[in-house]
Each structure stands twice: as C-alpha cells, then as structure tokens.
C-alpha cells in the first residue's frame, strides 16, 4: 500500500506526462482535422504549380470569386496544359535533344502522374480517346471539409484576404495539408477584429481598431 502523498505524485506525474504527450502529438479535439494531409490519387504538387510555375490559385479554383465554393477543377482544366505538357521540362527537353540527334520526331514521354491522369480520362498517348475506355473523374480526397451545418462562402473573403490566410502556404506544399483548425473559434477570432467595408483585413494577433463594430458574428451568418 503506497502512502497518500506518493499516490498524489504519481497522479500528478501521469497528468503532466499526459498533457505533454497530447500537446506535442497529433491528438486533437473531435472534428478538428488540423494537419490532415491525405495521399491523393494523383500526387499533384501545389508547390510546383502555384509557386514554381506561378499559376494563380483562381485559374483552377475559378469558383472562388463567384460561388460559395472555390471548387476542385474539372479535369478539362488540367488538360488545357497537359494535352501538350506530359512530363517535366527537363525530361521533355532531353527527349527533344535525343530525337534531334537521332534525326527523328520526338516521342511522347509521360511522367508517372500524368500517365495516371490520362488513364482516368481514358486517353491514348496522343490525348485522343481510347476506344472502349470511359473517362472517369479523379476521386480526389477532400482536405478542407467543413461540417454540413456550416455555410462558409468564399465570395466575401476572396479578394479581401489572401487564400493563405485560411489555407496556409499551399504554394510550398507538395501534398496539401489542412494548415489551420477551421474551428468556429478560429473563424470568430478573425470576424471579431475586422471592420466591414474597410477593404483591409486584419489577421489574429493584429490590433483591432473598434471593438464595438466588427464583421458580423451573428450565428446566422454561418449557420442556417
């Protein structure tokens, strides 16, 4: 039988230890998917497209300005470039050099991921429909997924703040990760410090000018 004070010390130790484990691990409250970064059916790199190639977010996610949902692009959007771009620039250049040296037409070379894209779309290597193949959409896995009782709308946010404010530095991500918690408290934090109609947007941590007049925090702004 242990002395009572030993019991208390053990209990405290367990609690503190538990707190450290919870604090440093991936453990989260239920429903909070911060850090979620599922493996996608095609290893599409936002780093390559958004940063290296400098494509605007809204080129693919064109719904962001006009629709509540930014949208995941139809595969036809991918094919605007990938009809001709089928592998990395280096690979394509190497093939052209090889073909030039051999005095023949360059062959189509495919990266493994673009090959998957063509497979989904049922296209042959000349981007023509393969006989008998049915084009299938790419079954992307949703990363940023709010519960069904929340109505987030991209329209009032896009143009007033950077996409990164909520989605994190997507342009650095090889695989997209949910950077922020997307919890209600996190939304409200921003709504409380921003004044409507001023154009500029403050992010958490920045000082807010007028506490009595801010972007609506009415329940019915998001829940109906």
């Amino acid at each position, binding site marked *: 039988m242990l002395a009572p004070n030993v019991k208390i010390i053990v209990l405290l130790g367990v609690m503190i230890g538990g707190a450290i484990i919870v604090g440093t691990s991936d453990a989260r409250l239920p429903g909070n998917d911060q850090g979620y970064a599922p493996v996608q059916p095609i290893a599409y790199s936002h780093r390559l497209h958004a940063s290296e190639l400098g494509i605007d977010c809204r080129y693919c996610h064109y719904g962001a300005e*006009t629709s509540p949902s930014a949208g995941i692009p139809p595969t*036809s959007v991918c094919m605007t470039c990938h009809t001709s771009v089928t592998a990395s620039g280096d690979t394509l250049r190497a093939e052209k050099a090889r073909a030039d040296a051999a005095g023949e037409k360059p062959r189509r070379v495919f990266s493994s991921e673009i090959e998957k894209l063509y497979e989904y779309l049922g296209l042959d290597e000349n981007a023509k429909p393969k006989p008998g193949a049915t*084009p299938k*959409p790419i*079954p992307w896995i*949703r990363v940023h997924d709010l519960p069904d*009782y929340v109505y987030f709308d991209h329209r009032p946010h896009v143009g007033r703040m950077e996409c990164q404010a909520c989605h994190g530095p997507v342009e650095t991500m090889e695989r997209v990760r949910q950077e922020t918690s997307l919890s209600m408290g996190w939304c409200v934090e921003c709504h409380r410090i921003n004044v409507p109609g001023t154009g500029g947007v403050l992010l958490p941590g920045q000082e807010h000018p007028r506490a009595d007049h801010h972007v609506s925090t009415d*329940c019915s702004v998001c829940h109906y």
Partner: protein
Amino acid sequence: MTHQPMNPTPDAEDALLPVEGIAGSRRSFLRLAGFGIASTVLAGCSRGPVRRAVTYLEAPDGIVAGRGYKMATTCAGCTARCGALARCRDGRPIKLEGLPDHPLSGGGLCAVGQAEVLSLYDAQRFDGPRAARAKTTWANADREVARVLAKVRKDGGKVRVLTETVTSPSTQAAIDGFCALVKDGRHVVYDALSSSAILDAHERTHGRRVLPRYRFDRAEVIASFDADFLGTWISPVGFARDYASGRRPDGDGAKMSRHWQFEARVSLTGGRADRRLRVAPWETGAALAGLCDLLGKKAGRTSPASGSAASAPHGDHLAGLADELWAARGRSIVVCGDDDVGTQTLANLANDLLGNYGTTVDLERPSRQKLGRDGALSELRTELASGQVALLIVDGANPVYDLAFPGGLGGAIEKAGLLVSTAGLEDETSQLAHVVCPSPHFLEAWDDAEPIEGILSLTQPTVPPLRDARSLRASLSVWSGGAADDRALVEAHWKQSVHPRAVPEQRFATFFRQALHDGFIELPARRRDPAPFQLAGVRLPDPPAKPDGGRLAVVVYPKVSMLDGRHAHNPWLQELADPVSRIAWESYAVLSPATAERLDVAEGDVVRLRTDADGSPVALPVHLQLGQHDGVVAVARGYGRSGTDRFADIGPDWWEGEATVGPGGRIGESAAHWLTVHGETIRTTGTAVAIATTSDHRALASVQEYHSLVVPPHLAPEHGEIRRAARTVELDRFREDPEHEIHGAHHHPTGNLWPADHAPEGNRWGMVVDLSACTGCSGCVVACQAENNIPVVGRDEVQRHREMSWMRIDRYHQGDPDDVQISHQPMMCQHCDNAPCESVCPVLATIQSSDGLNQQVYNRCVGTRYCANTCPYKVRRFNWFEYPRKSELQNHALNPDVTVRSRGVMEKCSMCVQRIQEARIEARRQGVELRDGDIQVACQDSCPAQAITFGDLADPKSEVSKKAAGARAYRVLEETQVEPAVRYLAQVRNRRS
C-alpha cells in the same frame, strides 16, 4: 398518451451485461461505461470517413459548382400553364418559383406548382417502356404500335387519342398529323376538372366553342355562381393576381371591387367574398335566370329567362346584385362554375346584357386552358364497347379513375384493341394498358404551351433525364415514321408556325434562344370575325332534382392541393392542410352543422353514403363546415388513388405510430362514382345520397383547432378577452376612420417589462402580410417546405399536432351560417424584438441577431421545448424524430443551403436567412448596395396575390416600411409587447349593410 417501455423484455438488464459474475454490479457497469466513453472519445480524435470530391470531367457551360442559377420554364402541374422559374444548383432543380413578368401568372405559382419539384425526383416513376406490365424496350413498344397501325391501314378500325386539354401547339400538331395517318383517327379531349359546359354554352351563344379569358382585374363587380376561381377553377394563379390587383383599399390607385358569391359548399373563393349566399346545386340555374331577368328588364330586352325573377332564390339579394352590376356595365363580370350548359348560357346572357364581352370577358384572346368536350366521351364509350377502337392512346389523363361512374368510360376502355398509356407514374389507366410509353416530367423535358391565345411559353430541361421516358409528341413522331428528338420537334414547330408570326426579320436561332431565356413570347391576336351574341342559343337550366326523403345532394369538388388526384403521390401536397377545412391526409364528408345535428353526427364520426344506383356505400368521416348549404354533402375528389399505398409507412417509425393510409390501404376514398352524365356534360353535383350513421370514429388530422386558446371566464378581463388576431374592417367604415376601425377597440396595456437595450444595428428585417390580398391558396406553405427542407411527418403525427411546417395559414370564421366570411392569416415566426422564446432558452439556442432576426441555432439546442411553450404565436416546431428521408433520389430536392435538422432540436421560420445572406454576399461581391427588393423570401416570391412584402424596416424608404406605416397595419397580439417584426394589414371587405 400512454407510455410503454421501449424494450419490454423482463431481463433487459441481464442482456446489457451478459458476462457472468459481473452482471448487476454497479462498479463493473461503471468500468464498462467508462471504457466505452473513452473509446468513443479516442475514436473521435481520428479522422472520420474519407470524403471524396468528385469533379466534372468538363464543366457544363455556365455551371460553377455550388453557385445557383435559374432557368425559365412552364409549369405543367395543371393545364393553366403558368410561367415558372426553376432555381437550379449543380445541374439539378431544387425549387420552382413563378416567372416574373409572365403575362398570365405574373410571377405567381400555386402550391401544386411549387410541389412539382418533388415529383420530378419520384423514384417510382417508370423507367423505360412497359408491355404487359413488364419492362420492355422502345423498339418492342414501337413495334407493337406499328403492328396495330399496319393492321388498321389494312383492315380498318378506329384510332383514338384520348388526352386532357393539350396546351402545347407542337403536341397538338403532332396529334393532328398522327390522326390523319389513318382513315378513322380522332383526337378526343376531356378534362377531369372540366369547363366543357362553358365551351358548349359559347358554341350555342357565340357560334364558337371557346373559353373566354376572364379579366378579374378589369371587374369592379364580380358575381360568381359556384366558380372557385381563386382556388381551382381554370387558372387560379392568374385569377388571384388579377383579383388582388382590383382590391387595393389604400395607397396609390386605391380601388376595391365588390365580390358576390353564390355557392353550396364553402370554397376558398366564397370565403373571401364580400357577400356570400348559400345556393343549392338545384338552385344555381334559377338564381342566374332570376339575375338575367332583372338585368333584361334594365336593358329592355326579353330573353328566355324573362319572368323567372319571382321564383329565384335570394330574390332581394339578386335585385341588389343586379343594381350593382348594372351600375358597373362593362366593368363587371358574371362567372359560373356549373356543369349545366343551360345555366352557362344564362351566364353568357348576363355578361352580354352587361356589355362585358370585349372588356372583362375576352373572346379575342380566349383561354386555351380547358378545351375538353365531355360530350365526346359517350361516343368514345360506344365505340370502345363495340370493339371498334383498334388503338387507344391515353395521355395526360387517367380516365379509369376519373370516369369511374355509371355512364363513364368505366370498363369499356379494356375493350380497346391496344391500349397505350403515356403515364409517367403508375396510375389506374396504365395498370390496364397493354403498352406504357412513359412521359418525362416537365422539368426534364422539352415542351411548349399556349395557355392564352397569343401567349406562348417554352419548357426546357433543367436536369438530364432521370428516367428513360419519351413525350407523346416524340412517340407520335416515331409512330408516324419520324425521329424521337423532342427538342428538334419543338424547334421545328416554332420555326414553321411561331417564328413567322413573331419576328420574321430576326434569325430563328436568335429568336428561339431569346424565347427560351425569357420563357415566353407574346404574339398579336389572330384575326377573326366578330362573334355576336345569339339569343337563340340561350337555353333554360336543367338543374338536378332536389333530393327527397332526407337525402342530401353530393357536391364533388377539387381541393387546391389534390385537384383531380393527379398529384396524389406527392407527400408535400398530401400533408398540405386544406385552407378551408384545415385537414390533411384525408378525404371526408363535409356537412353543415345544422345537418350534422339533424343526423346526430359529430366531427370525425364515420358515415356511410349510399346512392340509389350502386349498392356499395362509401364510408367517410364527417367534417363540419360553417356556411355550407344544409342540403348538400361535399366530398373532395382526387382521393383513393392507386399508388397512395406508398404512404403506409411515411411517418416516423415508433411504437405508437399509426399508418397514414386509411382502412382501404389508400389515402381517402374516390368520389368519382358520384359523377353523372348529364346531356353533353359530366355533372359533379346533385347526386342524391342517403347518409347512414355508424359507430365508427376516425379522428381527422386537423391542424387548426388545437391552437385555439380559450381563456377561462373567471380569468378573462372585464368584457371578455377579444384578441383580434386576424382583423377585418368594412370598406366604408375603414374609409371614414381607419385608425379607429383597426386599432380603436383594442386593449393597450401601458408600461413595458422589457428593457429597451437591444436595438438592432444596420438592417432590421421585417415582413408585411396583406390580409386583404391573401387568398389562403397555401402556395407559400409549400414554397417554405421546399426552400427550408421541412420534413413530411405523416397523418398520425399531424394528428398529434406535430406537423413541421414553418408557415401555416390560420383560418377564421366570421358571420352567421347564411353569410359566413373566412379570413386567412399566414402565420410564421414573428421575429419579435422582445422574443419570449429567447428569455426562456437555457442554452442560448435561440437569440437575437444584430439585424433583428430571431435565430435558431440547431447545434446549441438541447430540446427543452420551453421556447415553443412560451411562444405566443405557436410557430415553433420540434423534431420529435429523425424523420425518414428514405428516397435517396427524392433527397435531391433538398435545398443545399439549408441544414437538414436532426431529432431533438427546435426549428421555425428563419425569414429565409440563407436568401438574406446570398443577396448580401452577392451585392458585396459586385460592389453594389443591397437594394430594397433584392431579397425575396420564399413565401413572398411566388405569392400569386403578392400579399407578402419583405424588407428592411430600418430603411424608411423601403416598401415594407411604407406598408408597415399604413393605416391598415397592426401586429398580432401587440398587447403582449413582444414587438414582432411581422406586420399584418387588416383585411378590408366591401360589405354594405
């Protein structure tokens, strides 16, 4: 209500803890429970099921995921063919609304039209053709028809196409072309809700079988003999809009028509009339003859009706009516809903004596909404019975159900050589059909319509076909050797027949595209010789005999939700309480209170109705209706339809739950067998029935009486408590002293318990409901149901007062049985500034928003139901169950912008906050100010009478503020000082004492 244990097993506790040794031990139970909770929490920390985001391969033109858009189309819920606007999302329609600026319906849409979107997603619709009640291919079905056609060409035989009124010019052309292919082909038209007598009467008196377009907007005095023109008669949405425009008691261009109604049962229209008189079915003709006599004397013209005023019922009133009509010559209207051709010719005579033809009764641009000829059916019956009809094609009609009466089509239809039905959903006729070539729903099809001559509208698909179906037009084209491309067929017709009459200088493609976008075009009227009135055509009425021996005359009538029964499969319409009886999910025998007393029956008592002709009695529960004629029993048609057995398990599944269907496994009983053949028309009134009482009782699913508040006499204030929730004033008194008439006699307590510390900032959303305009049509109730994902609960739950509708139409009676007046009051959450519900909620689940809305936060609600108990308006609804939404297809009709509530939370009108948000965000995106009228809430949007105005009460220039400041404005139960945001405008009646 009795409570039973959920699990009556005696050893339930043992079952919970089956491990020997620890059973019954409290500590071990806690240990297991603790483990269970811990594992649940741990499970919650991990990611839920992976959700896929499946994209378009190629986005359709103009469609952006998540963004709503609208498409103009034409409602085909009945033959009125109102303009409709389909609100779509991601390639599918989610809501139907009225098409603004449509020359017929002017942006209104009725309950049936609103509910059509649910019918589109009906999983029981036929998928592909059927032969001998089994699936087949189109090729096989076509081969079968071609075989019969070939045989007809060789051996002779009759080909008949039996339809309801065909409003589509392209389909009409296809039918005419098809009938011309064979030697004896003919198109037979009948309407279950028929205007055949009016058409026949005009053939007699004007030499042309036309249905005039009635212009209630131009009429200052309206005399209606049994015509329910605001409810179900010919074109109720257009009529309601016109009628309301002639009844604006205040404001700019104030005018107030005077409306007389003569009828046996109490119709929606009759309840609104300024003067309503009870006339039995056997007296209608005599009353009209009396009126014609009086008018003829004034005009100095004799007619067959001369001398009949002396014997007419309500002689004094008729004299008064004649004076009023005569004073408003050319600005008055006489309409009649009777099935007797003679009676209808008298209505024509009255309109001619008054000079109404050419003004309020338009023959230049007649209506094409009812073209049926009842008389053609008897000939068809003879042909069928003698086996001469080799091919019978039935489209848009259900004759086996509609005409199931002695002398109707009845069983003769089975003698057709080949019976082809185009029903999209199984009905009584398609059950007998040899071949079923299902028609598409109008929301997934191409079509056109010409409801009024010169007003043409188009129907375009709003969704790819959900079912393998083919329109009659396409089928006929195939059977005539053409192609089945429906769009091409419609376009070809428009290119050939419409475009040259419209703008021949414009390219056809441009013209057609514009017409598709607008939804309708207007053409100049066809030139015709004038059709003068011929007195020789007038015939004296031939009324039904007055029943003798204590029997009653049956009045078979259509209800606004059921019409002729074509929408019996639609749960929204079944659950829509009738605006007059306030009963849902049921058909019943309506008796006047005096007759019920004579028969010694009470509300809900089951009686048996027996006619002479057939021996089998029909058992129906009794409903008492103030103001009904004592000599009649009224029964709604459209009930007892096959296929309503699907509603057997529509409600929540629990141990006390009862089936929604009646004893016969269906919803209600059919009233078709009381119809009779009467000369060239089918008569819906007058069949004599004997009524026998039974010991059975069937509680009716009424949504009205239980909300009555009765103050015990010892608690009531001095003069008894009079709470005028729905206020009515008489026009003369209102003009003299509006303030006193609306507010004068009202109890105003002083002092306010509520602190004035919560003024809204910015906007203050509010609503004004004009009770003078509201007809009670209930379109708003279904609009709200569609917009806000309101579940259907079934008959049993409605009867337990657990219906979920956020908006209800309260009905109030006034006056005595001889002259009953009905007021309708749309009632929804009043969004009080001092909301009592907010004060009592222990978890802040209902709180005020900064713009004055009373918000309901579902995720906070724990279901104490305190708020519903404290609400003075009784508008809060509690989710007692997870209401079944079993049909995945039907769930496509859910509005993705509104949460589907789960069990255990309270809900109520949100003032369509999703629409407020949408308009706000869209205005901000476009960088423009939100203008008054940008936000249209669902109930307001399609109101045929434009009775509802929504807007910002904080803006004094807004329409809603102006109306709220008007003399007629008041708030319901304002003495409670809850400061509701909904104002009502008192109903004004043009009564003269």
